[in-house]
């Protein structure tokens, strides 16, 4: 007997009798018995399990959010208390994919509202109901571009998050897609001259990040003007920044994707987070993932259902637009909750504080000799030159409770010693002062 399994000995007997067999073993006659149990520990009571897992948790170092200056794709923001409380409702947490729409209206309406919010932030017409993460969303955007125009050459800014580019290479290789990486210039933006020279008749898509990995805000307007209309323009966006940055949709982006962790989701060692995926109505049949639409029931009452399912694997099998089935619906709930609580003003305030603090910190660091590497306008992250000794210092800062700017020159070797600094609304003036002290020590 186990507390998760209700069967009593008596019931097992009754059930075996109803089935017409005499033992549990009779139910497994087809199975070649190669083992009897596993070589793993025996079951433990709740208190012992709790203690063991807590023991592991204590081996980690948790930082006060205000002392975190590390971003690079995962951000510490303040998450209002109601977000977690409402999300923990078991009717959200323990429901499955909304296959029976009549008893899944909570899920479906929530996702429809999530889609609306993502469309609003990105300025796009359609959003799906989520992808695994920003990286796989970006990889799927490249695959979608190839489906849209049948071409296979992708021009990808080197300033897109390195993890995303790595995942994209894995995903696109079997399709025979080539990825040409486009350098950045002294401003930290994409090298427009190199991009111009690489665009040709075989080009399927151009992809940039907004803001990019260095925190620099790309000029989407002049990029779209440069990119011919039949080439798919993909923007990897950071959703909080979109409260103050002009929406990519306004500049003629075809696909806007990104990581939604910054909208009400704890960092979780990088997962679960959520990939968002938005596009234009004209491209929707090429889009991967589940989409929720509004409709009416037989009584004329408004309701929600999964739509355009003939794109998906359970209907179209090997001809589907993607193999994605399970997604990150629960994290979409966290995003929707966060955006509902914050509203347009709250999100703008968070974005503005993140921006303002970063610019304050950049000035303070510059005064102490940590020069900015790029001169382009940035959002809430920026790259500074650091002494070679910084890498060691980065580890030592942990003792001061500071999770400092991450050295990035192992990935961007050409930069020389440099680190990516991040602030959000959770960093205080005092915590920034302490960072400066530690960095200059």
């Amino acid at each position, binding site marked *: 007997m186990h507390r998760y399994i209700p069967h009593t000995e008596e019931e097992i007997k009754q059930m075996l009798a109803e089935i017409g067999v005499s033992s549990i073993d009779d139910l497994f006659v087809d199975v070649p018995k190669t083992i009897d149990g596993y070589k793993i520990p025996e079951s433990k009571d709740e208190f012992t399990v709790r203690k063991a897992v807590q023991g592991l948790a204590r081996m*980690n170092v948790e930082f006060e959010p205000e002392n975190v200056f590390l971003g690079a794709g995962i951000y510490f923001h303040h998450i209002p208390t109601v977000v977690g409380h409402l999300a923990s409702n078991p009717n959200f947490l323990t*429901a499955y994919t909304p296959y*029976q729409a009549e008893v899944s209206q909570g899920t479906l309406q929530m996702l429809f509202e999530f889609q609306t919010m993502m469309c*609003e932030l990105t300025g796009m017409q359609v959003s799906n109901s989520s992808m695994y993460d920003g990286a796989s969303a970006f990889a799927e955007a490249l695959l979608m571009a190839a489906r849209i125009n049948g071409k296979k050459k992708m021009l990808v800014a080197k300033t897109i998050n390195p993890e995303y580019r790595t995942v994209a290479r*894995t995903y696109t290789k079997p399709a025979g897609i080539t990825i040409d990486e486009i350098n950045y210039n002294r401003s930290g933006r994409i090298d427009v001259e190199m991009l111009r020279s690489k665009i040709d008749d075989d080009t399927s898509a151009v992809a940039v990040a907004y803001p990019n990995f260095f925190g620099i805000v790309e000029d989407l307007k002049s990029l779209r003007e440069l990119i011919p209309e039949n080439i798919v323009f993909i923007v990897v966006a950071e959703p909080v920044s979109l409260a103050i940055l002009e929406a990519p949709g306004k500049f003629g982006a075809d696909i806007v994707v990104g990581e939604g962790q910054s909208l009400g989701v704890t960092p979780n060692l990088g997962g*679960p987070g959520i990939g968002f995926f938005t596009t234009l109505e004209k491209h929707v049949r090429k889009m991967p993932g589940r989409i929720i639409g509004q409709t009416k029931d037989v009584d004329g009452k408004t*309701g929600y259902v999964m739509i355009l399912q003939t794109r998906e694997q359970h209907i179209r099998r090997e001809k589907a637009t993607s*193999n994605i089935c399970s997604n990150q619906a629960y994290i979409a709930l966290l995003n929707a909750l966060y955006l509902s609580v914050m509203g*347009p003003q709250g999100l703008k305030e968070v974005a503005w504080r993140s921006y303002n603090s970063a610019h*304050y910190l950049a000035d303070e660091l510059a005064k102490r000799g940590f020069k900015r590497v790029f001169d382009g306008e940035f959002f809430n992250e920026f790259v500074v030159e650091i002494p070679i000794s910084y890498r060691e210092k980065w580890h030592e800062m942990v003792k001061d409770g500071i999770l400092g700017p991450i050295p990035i020159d192992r990935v961007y070797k050409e930069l020389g010693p440099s680190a990516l600094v991040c602030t959000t609304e959770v960093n205080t003036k005092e915590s920034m002062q302490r960072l400066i002290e530690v960095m200059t020590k």
Partner: protein
Amino acid sequence: MTIFEKSVKDRKGYELPPYELSDVGCNLPEHLIRKETPLLPEVSEVDVVRHYTELAHKNYSVDRGFYPLGSCTMKYNPKINEDMAALFANLHPFQPRETIQGAINLMGELKDLLCEITGTDDMTLQPAAGAHGELTGLLIARAYFEDKGELDKRRKVIVPDSAHGTNPASASMAGFDVIEIKSGDDGCVNLEELKAHLDDTVAVIMLTNPNTLGLFEKDILNISQMAHEVGAVLYYDGANLNAIMGRTRPGDMGFDIVHLNLHKTFSTPHGMGGPGSGPIGVKAHLTPFLPTPIVRKSADKYDLDYNLPKSIGMVRSFYGNFGVMVKAYTYIHTMGSCGLKHVSEMAVLNANYLRKRLSRLYKVAYDRVCMHEFVIDNEDFAKKTQVKTLDIAKRLLDYGLHAPTVYFPLIVHEAMMVEPTETESKQSLDTFADAMEKIYEEAIENPEVVKSAPHVTPVRRLDDLTATKSPIFRYKK
């Protein structure tokens, strides 16, 4: 009503602490500054609480009742799992490695446990879902054949016609040609049919065992030998692992690549469709191709290994859905070896009990001892009564139950695929069987009530056709 319609201009649900820094000014070029305020709700905290509580109320869930979705393993999701995952919520993936030792150890231990459970030699925890794991597994097979110089000739992936839709979709994403083979009269892989397709152009055979009919592929050792004789890789779709724990392991049956669904077998919640986690275990010859980084033990210490020159690369950012891993780790320690074996025994007992009870009135496809699930075949019944599987499913909702998976597997027309899982009691199975019997009577005596079901759900049957033909993708003012 949507939350946008509840919005009142200037109403607020948030509060931020005072901000001490002065405005340093904005130096963004004018055209890159947002002009239009995004349409986000302007509501109070109470409005948010009421709205989402009302939405939750419109959902059915495992915590509300019986949820017998075949191939989905909707077992109880223990509460302690959630508490344990929360202990790791505030870790940044790029923290210095020495500050995430607990997390790395947890991943390492989990990997070892899952390798033992699957009978494989090494494993990646990076894939975020089952289908993501499938893609990863197939990319590993691809890299393996590429390394052997055989990729040009090995273009085929064989899947049975009873396979999950993700199998062919994943194979095609991995750049293979999909060959679908017909099942035999007994619902299992037809060995003759398999043999006819098997040669050195086959890269991978993907199987679910037990298969989607809930039947154990009893020729599996034979199949594995046939696959290996032509040099193909045998892939295990782990959707149905809940049937065989503690008795046999995919690795022992000869599978080379094994995927798991932590959100099925290992009790982590489905969260309306995700996050899941789809680890991929492999036999020794395939370990060089695993995604980076891999958690490995060296000198009694777990660490992250990035040095895999033949790796397929990363399939997801960072380490995967780590939070889900914590929950599965907690579950495995809670159940232990005997507990997991007991899980499968009771899952199979429940399925057979329910099969037997339903077979009093309904036709069970391939009616013999099943594993953790079985399939009802309503084709004849639908012809006789005009009441289709869909109608029965909808009527079940009126009885306060969730419907089984319907119209899958595709090889049974009017299919209803029932997986009760081990966490359901005899009483809950009886309640379901009683409702199914009642619906059977209704279908004969008063078919309209079934055909027009559901009647008491938050909404009634929805117009899918218009929803797809003239789609409304988002709320508009």
